C-alpha cells in the first residue's frame, strides 16, 4: 500500500504554485515590488492580491508596505516558513512521481 504524503493545500493550487515558485527564485532576503511581481507572472492585480492574501494568512509570504520617496510601494517576499513549505511540497511531489524504495520512504515519514 503506497502512502500518499499530504500536499499542502495552500500551495497545491494552480495560481499560488506559480506565485510561490516565482518568489522562491528570488535570493533569500530580497523583496519584489507588487507591480513587478504582477508583470513577471502575467496576473491581474486583483487575482494576484487574492492569492497573496491567502499565502500571507498561512504565514508563507511577508507583505511590507513602504514608501520610496513619496510613492507608496508594496514589497513581497517568501517567508522562511514559506520557503520551507515550498521545498517540502516540491520534495513531496517528486517523491510521488518517482517512488523511492520502502526503506527510504520510512525514513522520510
Amino acid at each position, binding site marked *: 500500500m503506497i502512502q500518499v504524503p499530504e500536499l499542502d493545500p495552500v500551495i497545491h493550487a494552480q495560481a499560488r504554485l506559480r506565485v510561490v515558485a516565482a518568489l522562491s527564485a528570488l535570493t533569500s532576503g530580497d*523583496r519584489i515590488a507588487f507591480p513587478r511581481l504582477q508583470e513577471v507572472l502575467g496576473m491581474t492585480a*486583483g487575482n494576484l492580491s487574492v492569492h497573496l492574501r491567502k499565502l500571507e494568512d498561512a504565514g508563507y509570504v511577508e507583505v511590507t508596505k513602504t514608501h520610496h520617496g513619496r510613492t507608496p510601494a508594496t514589497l513581497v517576499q517568501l517567508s522562511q516558513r514559506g520557503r520551507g513549505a515550498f521545498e517540502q511540497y516540491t520534495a513531496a511531489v517528486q517523491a510521488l512521481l518517482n517512488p523511492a524504495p520502502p526503506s527510504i520512504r520510512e525514513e522520510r515519514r
Partner: protein
Amino acid sequence: MTEHFGDRDSTPPAAGHDAPPADLAESMRLIAAGRAAAARRLQPDPRLIFWPWAFSWIISFGLYFLHYGPGGRVFVDLPGWVPGATLAATLVGAGVVAGLAGARAYRHVFGNSSIRGAMYGWTWLLGYLAMGVILGRITPDLPAPEAGLLWAAAAVGVTGLLHAAGGAIWLDRNLFALGAWITVTNLAGVLAGPGWHSLVTAVAGGGGLLVAGLLAWRRWRAVTA
C-alpha cells in the same frame, strides 16, 4: 508606481486558478513555469553583461597590438591616439549596455541582492580609482612602452581579481574561473613584454569573456526555456 494591493475587490478571482493542479506532472510544470518566468524577467541576459566587454577588449587591445607591436614594430600605421580612444569609447559603451541590462532586470527588487550588487559596483570604482591615482603618480617617470604595459596590466589585473571575487560572492564557479583565467593570462602577457601583452589581452582575455558569456547564456536559457 501605482498601489495595487488594496484594490483586490476590483477584479473577481478566477475560480479556476484556485483549483489544484490536474495532476502531479502539472504541479512540476507550474513550478518550472513560475521559476522560468522569474529567471527570465529578474536575471539579465548574460550575453548583454559579458559580451560588450569582450568586444571592447578584442577590438581595442587588437588595435594596440597592431600599432604598438612587440619591439616597437608597427603592423598597421594608425594615428597614435586611435587605440586609446577606441578603448575609452568601447569601455563606456560596454558600461552603458551592461548597466542598462542589469538595471532593467533588477529594478523594483530590493534587499540583500541590491546591497551586494551596489557594494560590488563601488568596489570596481574604488579599484580603478586607486589604480589611476597610483599609476598616474608613477608612470610619467617610465619609458612609454613600460608605462603603457603597466597601465594595461594593472587594469586587466583589477578586472581579473574582481571577477574572481564575484565568483566568491555569488558562488559562481564560471565567474571565478574567468577571473583566474584573466589573471593568469595577464601575467603571461606581462612576462612576454609590451606589445605581446596587448595580443594576449585581446585574444585570451577578450576570448575568455566571450566564452564566459556563452556558458552563462546557455545556463540562463536552460532555466528560462
